[in-house]
Each structure stands twice: as structure tokens, then as C-alpha cells.
């Protein structure tokens, strides 16, 4: 594999809150290669959004303590000066946030907002920036870009706004695109359009993508690799086929079992109840000792569950991983009934 676009090592984020220190991200490591899509999945509160905000220095420095290493094309984002970080954000990383209604400025035309991104990282004139804005809008498939550039956000639909935000994120052809629940607020038909768009842009530009979502269906369609987060830790990672079709962690299994599945339910018979994961995730101010998942785990059996944190171990060992040789790992003591563990 060529040099990775992003290398995150042992990322930790603590937030000071009135209820004590919240350990939101606890030792997260992953890499994103050129043209690769890594999906980060987890439920609300699992730390997935905070982990990328921390990379971009977008957390309030008064309350957040970020440690670890996060190298963007070899350069550590976490120790870089503010000025350098500002330089890097446009051409290095583009970010797409969840809500297309609130991430655009309502009193500026979308052309101005695009031009701002273009001019912040280049010396182009106003006229050239406008031309580039029109080109970008055309690239993301906005109809009638020459006129759309003078419109205000409220004149566009949700799907069109999200296209504008993607255009802004891509204005400086970043090496890495981070999408945080980018399609969650959209209808499925529009979601399909946006996913196709990102897919095409990624093919054209070789952009590395970190796609944060709670929707395992979306993950199946777009990801090369998947990282499952729970309680601020990575509990399982691997290729999309390994994690979704052969999950090794009880939490991943629980998530998949809890999903009503359109593909499986085509018969006429009585539909069985969904499997559920009882209880709720632990508060980050008070994480359990041992395995983060044990208080909700339906199969906990090992005495170490409650006392010792399980390491992220290879499922089946390196020789058994098939395909492109990407490892499948999971952090659990509950390995009974799964003969892949060595």
C-alpha cells in the first residue's frame, strides 16, 4: 500500500464537564489510504464525531485535552501551529457536517461561500473564484450552476444544500474528506444520489474518505474498511465484508441483529422479533472497568470481562485473513463458539 493519507495513533480525547472528566475517545488507531473509504460506525455518544473534530482542532481548547498522533500525509495535525493548521484544512482535509440546514450561512449567496473557500487557499481574483465556484457546482451535479451560484441557501432543497457543502469541502481538492453523518438528514433517494456523487469524486481524485455514520446499510455500500466504536474505543475493525458478514464482537452482532432487514424479510410468514441490545451505553464520565461493553453484553462469560480491558486482537490470526490481507480485529473476551480465534 502506498503512503496513507491519514494515520491516527492512540488518539485520546478528554472533555472537562460539570460532572467530571468525560473520556470520550480512548485510544483510537486507524489509517486511511489513498482512494480508500473507512467507515466509523457507532451509536450516539460513542465518540465518533468527537474523534474527527479533535483531528481538525475544532474542539474548544479550554475544555478538551487531545493526545496521541494524527498524521495527515506525514504531518502531525495535533502538534501543528494554528496557522499551519489553517493552511492544511482546505487543501488537506475537507469536512462535510450532518445538517445541511445549519452549516451554510443563510445571509450569503452560495457563490460567495464557495468563493471564500477557494480564495482562502489560493490567490485567485474574485472573477476567477466565481468561475471556479460555478465549475464546482457543476461537478457536484447541481442543476443550472450559472444561476444557482447567486442563490441563497433557503432557496435550495436539503439535497442541493448538501451538494453545495460537498462542493465547498472539495474546493481545494483535499487529500482527505471527512463526512460526519453527511446523509443522515436526507431522504433515501437523495442519500443514494449523494453517495454516488462522493463515489465518483473519490474515483476521479483519489481522495481518502472517513465516513462517520450509524447506518450499517450505508456502510455496506460505500466502505472498504469499517471501524466499530463503543464507549470511545474501537471494539472491532476489518474489511466491510468481515465486519458485517462475520462479526466477532458481541456488540457488532447485537447492532446487526437489531436492524430490520429489508433484504431478508421478503417472505409472507410471521416476522420474528428483532434482537435487541438491552440497556443503554455507559456515560463517558463513568466508563466500566474491563470491557466497555460488559454491562450490556448478552454472552459475557469470562471472569476477565469485568476487570481487564480486552486487547484489539486479530480474529483468526493474520494467516487466516483472506482477500487483500487487511486484518480483522476485535476487542472482546467472549470468543466461545467462534472457532476463528487462535
Amino acid at each position: 500500500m502506498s503512503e496513507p493519507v491519514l494515520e491516527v495513533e492512540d488518539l485520546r480525547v478528554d472533555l472537562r464537564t460539570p460532572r467530571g472528566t468525560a473520556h470520550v475517545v480512548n485510544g483510537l488507531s486507524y489509517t486511511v489510504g489513498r482512494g480508500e473509504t473507512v467507515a466509523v460506525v457507532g451509536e450516539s455518544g460513542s465518540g465518533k464525531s468527537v474523534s474527527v473534530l479533535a483531528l481538525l482542532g475544532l474542539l474548544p481548547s479550554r475544555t478538551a485535552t487531545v493526545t496521541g498522533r494524527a498524521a495527515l500525509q506525514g504531518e502531525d495535525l495535533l502538534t501543528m501551529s494554528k496557522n499551519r493548521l489553517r493552511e492544511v484544512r482546505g487543501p488537506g482535509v475537507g469536512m462535510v457536517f450532518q445538517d445541511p440546514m445549519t452549516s451554510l450561512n443563510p445571509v450569503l449567496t452560495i457563490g460567495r461561500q464557495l468563493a471564500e473557500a477557494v480564495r482562502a487557499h489560493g490567490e485567485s481574483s474574485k472573477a476567477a473564484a466565481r468561475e471556479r465556484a460555478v465549475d464546482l457546482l457543476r461537478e457536484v451535479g447541481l442543476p443550472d450552476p450559472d444561476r444557482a451560484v447567486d442563490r441563497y441557501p433557503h432557496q435550495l432543497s436539503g439535497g442541493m444544500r448538501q451538494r453545495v457543502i460537498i462542493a465547498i469541502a472539495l474546493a481545494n481538492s483535499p487529500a482527505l474528506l471527512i463526512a460526519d453523518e453527511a446523509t443522515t438528514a436526507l431522504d433515501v433517494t437523495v442519500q443514494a444520489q449523494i453517495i454516488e456523487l462522493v463515489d465518483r469524486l473519490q474515483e476521479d481524485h483519489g481522495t481518502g474518505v472517513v465516513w462517520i455514520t450509524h447506518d450499517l446499510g450505508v456502510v455496506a455500500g460505500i466502505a472498504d474498511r469499517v471501524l466499530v466504536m463503543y464507549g470511545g474505543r474501537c471494539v472491532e475493525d476489518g474489511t466491510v465484508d468481515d465486519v458485517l458478514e462475520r462479526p466477532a464482537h458481541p456488540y457488532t452482532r447485537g447492532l446487526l441483529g437489531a436492524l430490520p432487514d429489508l433484504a431478508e424479510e421478503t417472505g409472507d410468514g410471521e416476522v420474528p422479533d428483532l434482537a435487541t441490545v438491552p440497556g443503554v451505553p455507559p456515560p463517558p464520565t463513568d466508563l466500566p472497568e474491563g470491557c466497555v461493553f460488559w454491562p450490556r453484553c448478552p454472552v459475557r462469560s469470562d471472569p476477565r470481562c469485568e476487570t481487564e480491558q480486552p486487547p484489539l486482537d486479530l480474529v483468526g490470526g493474520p494467516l487466516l485473513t483472506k482477500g487483500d490481507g487487511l486484518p480483522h480485529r476485535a476487542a472482546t473476551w467472549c470468543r466461545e463458539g467462534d472457532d476463528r480465534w487462535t
Partner: protein
Amino acid sequence: MDLTKRAEPERDVLVSARGLEVHFPIRGSGFRRRPIGAVRAVDGVDLDVYRGETLGLVGESGCGKSTLGNALLRLVPPTGGRVTFDGIDVTALDRRRLRELRRRAGMVFQDPFASLDPRRTVAQTVSEPLEVHGLAGDRRERAARVGELLELVGLDPAVAGRYPHEFSGGQRQRVGIARALAGEPDFLVCDEAIASLDVSVQAQVLNLLRRLQRQLGLTLLFVSHDLSAVRHISDRIAVMYLGRIVEVGPAAAVAGDPQMPYTRALLSAVPVPHPELERSRQRVVLGGDVPSPAAVPSGCRFRTRCPDVFEPCPDVDPALQPVGSAPGHLAACHLHGVVGTPVAAEADGAADRPPRAATGSAAR
């Protein structure tokens, strides 16, 4: 033409809508704020909900599914058509009889953070319907009934004295369901009741609704944009587009053998958690956006985005007709034969509206 009844005459209808319309006026900016157009949120809906079934209502945002759910309970006043509840004309009820309807028909709302009063305890919230409808005599009886209701939805009765902020999203939604069940309703409308919950919690609430439906013999209208969840919980599914029901039928038939191009596109856009399947799937990606409900296209309202559009589509407004092999499977689509109202005839009917409302372009 009453096709719904003809297809399955033996079934017992609890809630029924005929030609139901909810139009919201768009007013001009002038001093008199005259109506210059209308948002046709619900625009001629014929729908039957059978006693004891779960009917799933799906569609994209803005298609009018929430407004339809509200209109069935008269939470928004219909501007045309008729709704009957157990044979009673809901649109003509006076205030006293409307209150009785409110007892017999409950509602579970989308956002459990906004639909509970933060300054009232769970007990106060759940017992309010009991007081309003005079159902449980004195305070002690009410407290006992609240305990029963909380137990029914899987909450510990000991939490009755707590406030909403002390609960997680899933627990709050259970409180909302307990409140909706307090009047022992026959009919429950769940409007995006699981949309704001996490996956593992969604499953808990879906299972709870199914259990309650069986246990109490409830009739459920499950309004959602989540097709997988709707497929899971529903006996029948109705698909809505721009204020109209465009396909309806048994859940297995609508989800497994969709007959209307819109339903097909909608289903193919739902991502499923199987990488192999996702890679090999043929996706019908619809171009463009949903037209504004203030400027509904003539004839078939889906024609501007339909991949199979042909001659009659702009000229004839399609009616629901029997399709596929399953009984009771209906779709409004000319591909199954051109059935419906010619557009010219429709324009005549529109003549009695304010003159400028007839053309959709006036709405801009």
C-alpha cells in the same frame, strides 16, 4: 370508484379516508394577505385502515404523511373529503364528541425530547389523559393505573416520580407510548416514533409496539420514512408521494413485488447491511428533487422523475387500480392500464377555487 372495498370486502374497516384533502393557503404579501395559492399537503387520499392491523405509511419528507396522520385524528382540519372512525364522521364532530375520539385514538410523536413536558413528572404526564377523560376515579386509582401503564411499556413503576430529563431517549419514548395508551385507545398513530432513536433502542421500541399491538388488539398507523422498519412492523404498506397514496397492499407484496416505479426507486435506494448484495444491486437513482406541493405536476404527479414516463402520464391523473398477484395490492400507475381522471376534467373541478390558485406557478 371504491376499489379498496371491492378487493377485500370482508375486512372490518376502523378508520377510513375518502378524497381527503388538507390544503394550506399561501398568502400574498399585500395588506389583505389574499390567498395566492395552496400547499396541497394531502391531496385526495383514499385509504382504509383495518381493525387490528398495522398499516405502514412511507414516503419522503414533505410528501404529506405526517399531515395525513394528523388529519385522520382531526389534529389538522381537513379542507375536503371525509374521514370516518368506526363509522363516525370525524370531520363533523362537535367538541364533546371530538374529546371521545381523542380518547379512542392516540398519538405517539417523533421527538421524545420535545413531546414531554420537562416540568412534569412521568406520573403527571401519563395520568393527564386519565383526568381529562375522567377515567380513573380518585388519586389512588390513577396512581395504580399509571403504574400499570408504565409496566405495560416496560418501565419500572418506581420511576413515576421522575422527570423526563432523567431518562434516555428510548425510555422517554416509552413514556410517550404509555401516555398514548392511557385512554385505552383502539387506534394509535405513531408518527416517526423511532426516527430519533439509536439502532439498538429502535429495535426495543419496535418490539414493544408489536407486542402491545397483539396484546391489546390495537390498530396501528406507523408513519415513517424508514422502509426497513415499516416492512418489519407492518401488515400492509401504503406509499405516499406528493399528497397522494400511489401504492398500497400487503407488506410482502409492496416490498417484495413493487408495481409503481416510485416504490421501486424508493426500495432500491434503501441501503441493506450486506456488502456483497450492495455491490451487485441495480439501483434506480431518481434524478432531481420532489416537486413542491404548491406546484403539483398535471396528470401523474410522479411523471417529472419517473424513468418509465409515457404519453398518458401528463394528461390523465391515475387512480388506484388492482396490480400484481396479491389481493388488495393497488397502485396508481398507467403502466398497468390507463385508469383515472383526464386532466381537462380536473381543471374544470378546480374552477371554483380562487382563480390564481389554479396555476401552480403562482405560488412562487
